[in-house]
C-alpha cells in the first residue's frame, strides 16, 4: 500500500466520519407522508354558497373551495394578492382597477375571467338572491338599484377586458381591496349556478385549492385537492370535515385519534393545554365581547361619568382567567390584537374601584344611591350567565347594583333593537382584518339600530370615519382609526370585556397548520409527517 494511497484513505475516512457527524448534528427534516386525508372538526354549516356566506362554519369550508381577488397572510393578516395580480385606485380611491391573473380555472375546467366577477357580485347584490351578507357590496355603485330590484347588474362593476376588472364606488374607500377577502366576493361560474339553481349550495364550484366532492348533511363534507389550482397546490389529497353536533363529542373522537384537528370544548382548555402543549392553539382572534349601554336611554344618556364608572369597576383579568379559563384575554380597547395597525392598550380604563366610586359620585349617584333599577340582559348559553354574575358581583363592590336576565337569542335581539333592553351583552367578530370593520359598523350613527346597537351618535366620529375611509395613505388611515377608537373609548358607550382567542387542538403528526386570527385554516398548507 503506497503512502499516497494510505493518505488518501485516511482523508476519505475523516471526510466520511465528518459528514456522518455533521448529518447527525443537523436536526432531521420531518419526512412528509404524501397523499393523506385530513380529518377536520366542523359543525353543520348553513350554506356553502359564497353569496350567502355569513356563519363561521360555512366560511371555513368556503375558503377552501373558493378564492377571491385578494387574500390575507395567515400569520399577519396583511393583504396579499390572490386571483388579482395587481390593483390600483384612481386619485380619490373611488374607482379601483384589478388586473387578473391569466389561466385561473374553475373546478369545472373553465377559465375564470373578469366577467365572472361582474356576474357573481351582481348575483349577491340582486334582490332575488336576498343575500344576508349583501351589505358588503354596499360601497359599489348601483348596489341600491340591485337591492330594490331596479337593476340586474351592478352598474359599478365592469369587465374592461377578460383580465381587467374596474370597480366604481359611491365614495372614496381606501381599504376597499381589503374587504374583497370576504367569501361573498368570491367568483362562482354562472353555468353551474344556473344548472343547480337553489341547490348550488349543495354543489359549490369555485377556483380554490380544494374542489367539492360530497356533503352528507350532519355527517361530513369531503373536499379533494384541485390539481389545476393556479397557486401552490395543496399537499393533502383530501380534507374531510366531520360534522358534529357538539364540541364534547368531537373532542372524544380527537382523543380516540379519529380527528386531526378539533375545537377545544369550554371547560377543557387548561386540561388540553397541559396534555397537548403547543398543539393547543390558543391564539388571538379578531373578536370582542362587550356590554353595550344604550346611549338614548336613561341612565346612560348624557352621563359619561356613569358609563366610565362601569368601565373602571370591572376586573377583566379575573373574568377571563376564571370564567373563560384563559380562552379570552382582557380587552385593552375596541380593536383586538391581530388587526394590522391596532393600538396596544388603547383603553384608558384599568380596574380601579376608587376611581369608579369617584366617577359614580360625579355622575350623581354617590355609592350608587339614586340609580334607577337596572337589568343586565344576556343571551342564554356559552357561559354568558357566569360572566354576567361575575360582572354583577364586581359592580356591586362599587355600589352599582342590577339584576341579570337571560333571554333566548331570537327574543334577545328583538328586545335590544326595540330598546327594551338597554344594558346588554353582545359580541363582534371581524369580517375582514381592518380597523374600520370594528369601528364603522358599531359606531357610525347611520348604523344605529342595526350593528350600532348602542345608538352611538357622535358627529366628530362620523366625520372622522368617513375621512378614514377616503384616506388612501395607509399610515394616515391607521392613525385616524386610532384617534376614532380613542374618542369612542372616552365616550364609553360600551364596556369592553374581552377579546376572543382561537381554541383549537391539532394531532401529533400535523404540520404547517395555522389557525388564523379569523379562526380559519388554510388547509392547502397542511401536511403530515411520517
Amino acid at each position, binding site marked *: 500500500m503506497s503512502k499516497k494511497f494510505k493518505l488518501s484513505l485516511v482523508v476519505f475516512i475523516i471526510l466520511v466520519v465528518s459528514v456522518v457527524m455533521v448529518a447527525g448534528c443537523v436536526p432531521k427534516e420531518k419526512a412528509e407522508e404524501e397523499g393523506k386525508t385530513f380529518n377536520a372538526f366542523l359543525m353543520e354549516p348553513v350554506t356553502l354558497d359564497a353569496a350567502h356566506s355569513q356563519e363561521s362554519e360555512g366560511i371555513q369550508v368556503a375558503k377552501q373551495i373558493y378564492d377571491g381577488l385578494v387574500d390575507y397572510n395567515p400569520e399577519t393578516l396583511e393583504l396579499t394578492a390572490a386571483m388579482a395580480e395587481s390593483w390600483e385606485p384612481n386619485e380619490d380611491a373611488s374607482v379601483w382597477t384589478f388586473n387578473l391573473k391569466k389561466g385561473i380555472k374553475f373546478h369545472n375546467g373553465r377559465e375564470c375571467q373578469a366577467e365572472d366577477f361582474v356576474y357573481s357580485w351582481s348575483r349577491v347584490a340582486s334582490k332575488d338572491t336576498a343575500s344576508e351578507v349583501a351589505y358588503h357590496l354596499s360601497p359599489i355603485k348601483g348596489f341600491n338599484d340591485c337591492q330594490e330590484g331596479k337593476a340586474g347588474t351592478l352598474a359599478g362593476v365592469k369587465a374592461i377586458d377578460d383580465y381587467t376588472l374596474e370597480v366604481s364606488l359611491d365614495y372614496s374607500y381606501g381599504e376597499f381591496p381589503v374587504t374583497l377577502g370576504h367569501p361573498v366576493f368570491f367568483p362562482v361560474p354562472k353555468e353551474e349556478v344556473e344548472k343547480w339553481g337553489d341547490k348550488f349550495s349543495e354543489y359549490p364550484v369555485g377556483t380554490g385549492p380544494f374542489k367539492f366532492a360530497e356533503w352528507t348533511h350532519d355527517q361530513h363534507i369531503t373536499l379533494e385537492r384541485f390539481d389545476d389550482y393556479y397557486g401552490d397546490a395543496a399537499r393533502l389529497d383530501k380534507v374531510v370535515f366531520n360534522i358534529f353536533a357538539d364540541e364534547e363529542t368531537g373532542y372524544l373522537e380527537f382523543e380516540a385519534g379519529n380527528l386531526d384537528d378539533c375545537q377545544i370544548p369550554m371547560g377543557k382548555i387548561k386540561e388540553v393545554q397541559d396534555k397537548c402543549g403547543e398543539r393547543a392553539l390558543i391564539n388571538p382572534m379578531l373578536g370582542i365581547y362587550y356590554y353595550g349601554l344604550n346611549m338614548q336611554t336613561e341612565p346612560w344618556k348624557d352621563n359619561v361619568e356613569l358609563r366610565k364608572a362601569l368601565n373602571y369597576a370591572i376586573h377583566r383579568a379575573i373574568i377571563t382567567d376564571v370564567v373563560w379559563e384563559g380562552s379570552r384575554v382582557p380587552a385593552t380597547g375596541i380593536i383586538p390584537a391581530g388587526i394590522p395597525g391596532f393600538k396596544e392598550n388603547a383603553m384608558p380604563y384599568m380596574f380601579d374601584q376608587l376611581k369608579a366610586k369617584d366617577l359614580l359620585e360625579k355622575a350623581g349617584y354617590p355609592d350608587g344611591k339614586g340609580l334607577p333599577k337596572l337589568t343586565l340582559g344576556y343571551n342564554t348559553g356559552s357561559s354568558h350567565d357566569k360572566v354576567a354574575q361575575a360582572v354583577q358581583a364586581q359592580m356591586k363592590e362599587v355600589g352599582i347594583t342590577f339584576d341579570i336576565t337571560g333571554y333566548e337569542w331570537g327574543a334577545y335581539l*328583538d*328586545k335590544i333593537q326595540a330598546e327594551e333592553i338597554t344594558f346588554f351583552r353582545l359580541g363582534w367578530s371581524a369580517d375582514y382584518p381592518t380597523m374600520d370593520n370594528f369601528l364603522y359598523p358599531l359606531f357610525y350613527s347611520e348604523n344605529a339600530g342595526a350593528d350600532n346597537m348602542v345608538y352611538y351618535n357622535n358627529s366628530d366620529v362620523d366625520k372622522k370615519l368617513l375621512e378614514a375611509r377616503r384616506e388612501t395613505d395607509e399610515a394616515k388611515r391607521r392613525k385616524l382609526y386610532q384617534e376614532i377608537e380613542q374618542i369612542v373609548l372616552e365616550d364609553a358607550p360600551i364596556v369592553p370585556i374581552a377579546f376572543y382567542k382561537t381554541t383549537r387542538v391539532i394531532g401529533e403528526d400535523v404540520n404547517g397548520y395555522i389557525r388564523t386570527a379569523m379562526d380559519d385554516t388554510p388547509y392547502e398548507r397542511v401536511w403530515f409527517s411520517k
Partner: protein
Amino acid sequence: MTRFIIKRLLQAIPVIIGVTLIIFLLMFVLPGDPARMLVQKGASPEVLENIRESYGLNRPWYVQYGKYMCNLSHGDFGTSIRYRKPVLDIMKDHYPNSIRLAVVALIIEALIGIAAGVISAVKRHSFLDIWVTLSTTILVAMPVFWFAMLLQVIFGLKLGILPISGMGDGSWRYYVLPAVALASVHTAFTARVTRSSMLEVVNQNYIRTARAKGLSEIKVILKHALKNALIPVVTLLGLDLGGLIGSAILTETVFSWPGVGRVIYLAILQRDTPVIMGGTLILVLIFILLNLIVDISYAYLDPRIKFEGQKVD
C-alpha cells in the same frame, strides 16, 4: 278491516289541520323575528324588509297559513328560511336516520324490557326482581346525556370496541351506543309495565287452570300469561316508536346522529317555521300510522276486540 283503516285515515285530516294551525299560531306568538335571526350583521331595516318580502314573512299570519296549506295540498312543504332549500329534502336527509335509530332502540326496549318485566313478575320478591326494580329505577333517574357520554367514554374511547359518534358507513356498530342510550329510559318503563301487567294476569283463574292441566311453566308464562299481559305493553311500545323519533334530540346531539330531532330543535331556535311545520307534520303522520298498527295488533292479541271498537264477550 279496509273500512276501519279508511275511516281512521280520514279522521287524520282534522288532526293535521289542527296541529298545523296550532304550530303556526305558536310560531307567531313566540318573540323573535326570523329575518333578524337570519341576518347577524348589517341588519338595516331595508335588508330585513327584503328578507321578509322574499319569504312572505311580512304578510298576515292567516295569509301565510293559507298559502302554506295550499302548497301542502300539492305536496310542497315549503322552503327552509335558514337553509334556503326545500323542507322535504331536509326531511328526506334526516327522517330515515331517526326512524332507523328509533326502530333499533324499540327492539332493544321490547326485548330487554319485556324479558326483564316477565322475569321480575315470575320471580317476584326474588333477588332478580329486586335487581330489575333497582336497575329500572336507576335508568329512569339517570340523565340520558350523561348515560350517553358514559357509554361513549367506556365503549368508544377506553375499550375502543364501538364507534363514538356519527353514522359512519351505516353499519350496525354505529347503532349500538346511541340506540342503547335512547332506549334506556323507555326500557325501564316497559319492564315496569310488563311486570305489573304480568302480576295481574298470573293470578287469574285460567292460569291456574293451565297449570292444573299440567302444562310446563314456560308454556304457561309465554303462551297464556304473556300474550294476555301484552296489551298495555303493545300500546306503550307502539306509541314509544313515535316518542323515540321525536324525543331523540339529546341522544342525537351527544352522538352527533344526523337525525330529525336536532333539525327541528335548531329550527325552533331560528324561527324556521317551514321546517318546524314539516318536521312536526311528518311526526304526526307517523303517530297516526302507529296508532292504527297498535289498534290492529289488539285484534291479534285479543280476538274479542273487533275493529269497530266493540268488545264482544
